[in-house]
């Protein structure tokens, strides 16, 4: 046995530190938390205000525009219909709102920092190990800091999802920009492009397929956090899954899981469709 006298806990110190941080930055955290919550509520209302049949029509039309294939066009609509059929419509919308806000935050942070990584080798060397660590860390871990500062509810869920989902878009933005052909860049410079013009007119547009792939991956990562986030009280489909687990209610768990998969498939297809459309145009 490990001797009882030889004990040392850092837990109280961490607790103290968090309390101190909350004391110092409390108002900032609160303001952030409040504005995030308001955004979430508004988005949720907005998404719920769209009638279910309009969702199906819009998604079907988008699918048609992208695939021009009869089966691929009608399946998304049918899949969405099943979510309503299982009585999970409002709950799914709740999840969707969390995912959308997290993805937007990830893009706001990930794309510019990816650009910074592409511009400066030093920034890249700083970020690369951080991103590596973030991607190897189990996603549960992100709940801890999020909970520390934002307690329970949807806000820590959004924060944790955001941290978890940032790396792909940041990496692929960096990679995409760095991979732009040097001979095209050289030509632009020879015609007098400043580094800003080079970035805006040449590097970012040519990196766009890669950036879009990053956005797609980020969105998928965000969706995969849904169940985990319900552990801090995010609600939504994840909560359904957790409840089903606790009650060993396989049927209910399956329905909620199904709804998550449907969301994933549809978001994935639609965002890939956009990326492909763009790719074809530029090629």
């Amino acid at each position, binding site marked *: 046995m490990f001797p009882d006298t030889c004990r040392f806990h850092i837990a109280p110190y961490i607790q103290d530190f968090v309390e101190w941080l909350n004391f110092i930055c409390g108002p900032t955290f609160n303001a952030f938390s409040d504005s995030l919550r308001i955004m979430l509520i508004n988005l949720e209302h907005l998404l719920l205000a769209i009638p279910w049949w309009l969702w199906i029509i819009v998604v079907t039309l988008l699918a048609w525009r992208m695939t021009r294939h009869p089966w691929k066009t009608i399946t998304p609509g049918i899949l969405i219909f099943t979510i309503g059929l299982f009585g999970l419509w409002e709950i799914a919308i709740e999840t969707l709102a969390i995912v959308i806000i997290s993805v937007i935050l990830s893009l706001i942070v990930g794309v510019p920092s990816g650009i910074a990584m592409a511009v400066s080798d030093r920034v890249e060397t700083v970020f690369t190990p951080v991103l590596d660590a973030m991607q190897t860390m189990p996603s549960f871990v992100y709940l801890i800091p999020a909970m520390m500062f934002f307690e329970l509810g949807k806000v820590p869920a959004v924060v944790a999802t955001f941290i978890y989902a940032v790396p792909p878009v940041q990496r692929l933005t960096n990679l995409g920009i760095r991979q732009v052909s040097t001979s095209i860049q050289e030509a632009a410079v*020879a*015609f007098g492009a400043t580094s800003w013009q080079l970035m805006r*007119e040449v590097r970012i547009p040519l990196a766009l397929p890669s950036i879009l792939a990053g956005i797609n991956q980020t969105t998928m990562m965000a969706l995969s956090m849904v169940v985990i986030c319900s552990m801090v009280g995010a609600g939504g489909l994840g909560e359904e899954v957790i409840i089903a687990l606790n009650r060993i209610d396989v049927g209910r768990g399956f329905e909620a899981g199904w709804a998550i998969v449907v969301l994933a498939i549809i978001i994935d297809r639609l965002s890939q469709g956009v990326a492909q459309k763009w790719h074809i145009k530029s090629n």
Partner: protein
Amino acid sequence: MQNDSEYLVEVKNIWKTFGNSKKIIPRKLIRTNINARDRKIVAVNDVSFQVKRGEVYVIMGLSGSGKSTLIRCLLRLIEPDSGTALIEGKDVTAMDKRQLTEFRRTRVAMVFQHYGLLPHRSVLENVAFGLKLRGVERKEREQKAAEVIEKVGLKQWEKHYPSELSGGMQQRVGIARALVQDADLLLLDEPFSGLDPLIRREMQDELLRLQHEFQKTMIFVTHDLNEALRLGSHMAVMKNGAFIQEGRPHDIVMNPVDDYVKQFVQIARGVVKDSPDKKGKIRSLPRRASGQDEPIIVGFGR
């Protein structure tokens, strides 16, 4: 302007080395362009030349002889280690960032071997690109671009993307993009090397016609003596980064200064058509370390 000199371009003692150390190597120490002890490549070895207004000045040499590096030094796409380049009386090597940008936008335009067109922009937008960088209004720049596109014979292709065009057509776009800048000096780095012989000849004629029409001064890089003879009013032969012979094309053909130049002349005349030369130098293109261009395919499998 204070530009009374008959020379548009005056290049003096340009040096460029690639490698780890930055110090300039004294001339006497350099025999070949590869300095094994320093692990340093001398890409441009003390080059000086002058180009008159309205003239086509051809720089010729084998792959790896430093032609691209030299021509890029004139625009400071590659920073020369030392030396000066006066263009229209202004020292390019002494310009600060803002002056350099301004200079690239207005005084000189370049055509690249690999075209360097923007794949996400239509032909029209590609040609108008330089004007856009300058801040010219959309309507004006598209009108000017359309005029030049018509001159290079691509009128019905304006709305297409570069990937929909053949190599020859893409290079026409590259030339139009340079012409629309309305700069006095054009730099062309092996613009026709990627094209098949027939198209190539057609493009050479086209370039001569355009030169006649626009009265540009051109610095034209090639490794094909026939091309040099067709286009050049002056030419220089480059080897291991240095100019080994310079003069009128006719004189160079009549009086090659050494075996290296002689080999060029013989190949151009078809004397050593299929037998590789003694040292195997001309037939086999050396592997290149440059990240700028890919190896040239023309001449490999013939």
